[in-house]
């Protein structure tokens, strides 16, 4: 326990003063992304497979429920597939990962690292947004092949998919952080999937819903995700795309705020 002081500065002690500044933040983000990618690397193929199965599988499955898949239905199902692939990653798999990290203590370890917590959260957002993309592309390809649908790609697709992926991940992450009990998170995510798969106008028009349920969906993210992605894949099918973008941006901000609120507190 001897601290050798030479020249007024203690040696043998870790450098513990807080570092800050944009340069340090960016450097932290890059190292956290390396760290996070290293941890999820072995799961990446499985994540892509699950996402593809979810998106493409659900697209095939919805077709079985209809006696006759008309051109309109086929278009709705196909353009809904990428949305269906994005939702489980953000709303189920990421909260599940966070719940597991909380149980095994990794979460506390990451928070103890000398990088800003905002950089840690941002690293998760960026990494998972990138990971979400291949699965949704595969889901779209399988659905388009199955239903022989001709798509009209527009440049709107890029911001639409990026915003949807970022929104799903931010909200899923914020939810997993804000709910402290992992069991509750598990129940919420499972209930969400049920709502998404049965009661959300992703693969069918919103006009088929009762008015009150449609109104609820104008404020929830799922319908709006389907709208912006469909707008990027078709022409003349959807209207009011701007409102959907605004709603999605608001959800992203809310997810970010929940994350900021939790990581900003000390326990």
């Amino acid at each position, binding site marked *: 326990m001897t601290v050798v002081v030479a020249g007024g500065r203690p040696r043998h002690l870790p450098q513990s003063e807080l570092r800050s500044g944009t340069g340090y933040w960016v450097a932290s983000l890059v190292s956290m992304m390396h760290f996070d990618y290293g941890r999820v690397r072995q799961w990446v193929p499985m994540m892509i497979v699950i996402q593809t*199965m979810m998106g493409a599988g659900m697209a095939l*499955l919805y077709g079985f*429920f209809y*006696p006759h898949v008309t051109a309109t239905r086929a278009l709705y199902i196909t353009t809904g597939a990428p949305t269906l692939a994005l939702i489980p990653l953000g709303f189920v798999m990421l909260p599940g990962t966070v719940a597991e990290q909380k149980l095994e203590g990794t979460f506390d370890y990451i928070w103890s690292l000398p990088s800003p917590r905002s950089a840690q959260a941002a690293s998760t957002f960026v990494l998972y947004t990138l990971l979400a993309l291949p699965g949704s592309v595969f889901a779209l390809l399988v659905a388009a092949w199955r239903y022989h649908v001709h798509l009209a790609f527009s440049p709107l697709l890029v911001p639409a998919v990026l915003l949807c992926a970022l929104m799903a991940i931010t909200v899923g992450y914020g939810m997993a952080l804000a709910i402290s009990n992992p069991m509750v998170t598990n129940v919420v995510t499972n209930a969400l999937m*049920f709502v998404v798969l*049965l009661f959300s106008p992703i693969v069918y028009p919103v006009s*088929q*819903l009762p008015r009150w349920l449609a109104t609820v969906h104008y404020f929830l993210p799922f319908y709006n995700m389907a709208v912006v992605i469909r707008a990027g894949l078709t022409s003349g099918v959807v209207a009011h795309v701007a409102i959907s973008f605004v709603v999605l941006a608001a959800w992203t901000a809310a997810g970010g705020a929940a994350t900021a609120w939790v990581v900003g507190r000390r326990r």
Partner: protein
Amino acid sequence: MPELQDASVIVPHGTVERGARHWWHDYAVMVQWHLASLRVWLVTLTIVQLLAGVGFVLGISLFFVRVPMTAALFVSTGVPVINLMTVGLILGPQLVADQKSNGSYEYLRSMPVSRSVTAAAWYTVCLIGGVPAMVVSLGVARLRYDLPLHVSPMIVPAVLLTSFAGTMLGYALGHAIGSPMATRLITQLLVFAIFGFAPILFPLSQMPRWLGTLNWWFPFRQMAVVTRAALTPGGHAAVLSAYVVLGLWAIACAGLAGRALGRRP
């Protein structure tokens, strides 16, 4: 030989008692054991089953502008099948996997009851977890769609065999597969397959022909056939063969699970 004498005192009275009287007694005790240890779980499960069943029955109408009678009828008579097999086939193996992970599995196996008692008690619990949800789903379906349902006495063997085959399949998955991870993964995939790739909730004609043929060899299509036949009026083809296929699956799975349970670890 003092050690031997001591040993005869120390060794507990752990042999399995035989005979019908003992069987019934053990059975009643095991059912009580399951109900007591799973009481919270069973309540949660019943609520989830009710919500899922009613949710499916009501949700299908959103897929259509005007829901066709066939679609409503198939979903309404398919949801009971799913209600019946969820406990035995999906949650049963996951419960066993949990028990294997946390060590209570070995303890349960050390109890001095025969394998048939354990299986029969678990089957009873699966029926208790499935039948109420099935009745409520059917009731809601009738109210919502005004369906031409006709419940025949064949509903009794249909429900008993559907639940039995599902329970035994789950029993085999839980006990015959060593790794809890593999069990969990397989049950997750089964959920997906049952809901979407077996003709339970929609007519066989709406899926590709090869997939329908493939389904003939699996129990899920047959479960739907026997249950639907007992719930709807009119003659039904292929009910007898469905009973045979289901029965064979149940016996084969019971055999697999029994062998796994009889093996010493």
